[in-house]
């Protein structure tokens, strides 16, 4: 069965409906990316699927006992709360030191255990969040704008990591992309939202769809840039130091 399915889902804030008649299902092992302009209901849909927002109409069904690995957009974390990476990875369930070390190594940030979460750079922070999500041995990874605040090479290598994790563990991936121009080429499906589902399909199909171009076409001439994996140079480990050379970027329409 589907891991998560929404059927004719409508979500309202007060009287205003932000999401209307959405029907979708996430199958095991697939990578689904949600794109859409600001206010198009991407995050709303994610939260309705998670169960943090109630449905005003229609229904959401999650597979019973579904293990979700969630990477939130932000944490209410500042220096008021001391929190080492090790402690964070043990929330909410206690993890062994070995499991924590392995998860950090897998996400490309080994040895960060003793650091404070607030002392991490943006890229390290995202990878620590991902490591924590992986410790739940998820059947589905749900990521809310995971590359926000990363530069383009950082985002590209984060997407590559997600794809590798999917290939190794077979978990499904559902993510919201804030960056309309950068969508993982590894996405099995891209769903373009604007209060409802405008269009969906493979990244190239969606990039060529007239609905997508109508929504995003003006600023970018309809270009949907897909990160591919050919230029595999030096920053495979999510380092977020600035590069002093221009990053080659491949655009495919």
């Amino acid at each position, binding site marked *: 069965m589907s891991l998560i399915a929404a059927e004719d889902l409508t979500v309202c804030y007060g009287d205003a409906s932000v999401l209307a008649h959405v029907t979708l299902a996430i199958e095991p092992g697939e990578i689904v990316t949600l794109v859409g302009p600001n206010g198009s209901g991407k995050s709303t849909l994610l939260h309705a699927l998670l*169960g943090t927002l109630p449905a005003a109409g229609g229904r959401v069904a999650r597979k019973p006992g579904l293990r979700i690995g969630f990477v939130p957009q932000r944490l209410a974390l500042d220096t008021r709360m001391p929190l080492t990476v090790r402690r964070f990875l043990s929330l909410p369930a206690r993890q062994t030191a070995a499991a924590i070390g392995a998860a950090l190594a897998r996400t490309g940030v080994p040895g960060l255990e003793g650091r404070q979460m607030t002392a991490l750079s943006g890229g390290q922070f995202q990878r620590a969040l991902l490591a924590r999500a992986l410790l739940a041995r998820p059947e589905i990874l749900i990521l809310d704008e995971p590359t926000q605040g990363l530069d383009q090479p950082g985002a590209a290598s984060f997407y590559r990591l997600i794809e590798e994790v999917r290939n190794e563990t077979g978990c499904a991936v559902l993510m919201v992309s804030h960056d309309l121009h950068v969508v993982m080429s590894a996405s099995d499906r891209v769903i373009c939202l604007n209060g409802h589902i405008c269009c969906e399909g493979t990244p190239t199909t969606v990039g060529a769809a007239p609905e997508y171009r109508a929504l995003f076409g003006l600023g970018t001439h309809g270009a949907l840039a897909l990160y591919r994996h050919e230029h595999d140079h030096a920053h495979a480990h999510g380092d977020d130091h600035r590069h002093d050379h221009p990053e080659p970027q491949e655009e495919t329409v």
Partner: protein
Amino acid sequence: MLDDFFARAVLAGIGTALAAGPLGAFVVWRRMAYFGDATAHASILGVALALGFSLPVFWGTLAVALAMALAVAALAGQGHAMDTTLGVLAHSALAFGLVAVSFLPGVRVDLSAYLFGDILAVSKAELATIWAGAAAVLGLLVWRWSGLLTATLSEDLAQAAGLNPARERLVLTLALALTVAVAIKTVGALLIAAMLIVPAVAARAFARTPEEMAVAAVILGALSAAGGLAASLALDTPAGPSIVAAAALLFAASLGIGAARRRRA
């Protein structure tokens, strides 16, 4: 030892610190300082009602503090501006409490005992109540610790892990009401929020994990109680305010320690 009023006072202070330390850490992390204030101020109304109906003050305080905390939590859930709501509720509850006390027929109530605490007059029975209340608060927090921490970082994160953030909020609300009912005897309604926040903030300088911060807050709270009481005895100052003043001095010292640590790091 319990026959000595000073020993009872110190034990009452330590009991209060046991509950206030870890709860205070959550109050700091979740930015609930004003929430604590509102709940504490409302407890004066509880005192008035308890005296009016000849009920134990502890239970009157607990009931009104709980009602206040639940009301504030409900309003917050509806998206009211929190600081304004709390500003209105905190001081209205205090005013209504003070007015209600004046209606009590034939009773001469020493209000200052409830506003600033009366720790030097703690009886053995009250000491038992304080420790039982503190044990209940600690038990609640330890039981739900992991869920509380997760929900504090991100309610979405908690939800995705199968926790119920609303239930975790309720646990904190209940713990807060219990702590207020415990601490009104030791530091009084006006200074309870200080006992929650000041030791916890001071503890931050010594901690690398949330647990260390909670434990350090208990230790600093207990030191404040002992130090404040000793100063109160030596200088003949009011006990409750002396305890809070001692906590504030510890906080000032922690600022220096924190700065020194950052320089070394």
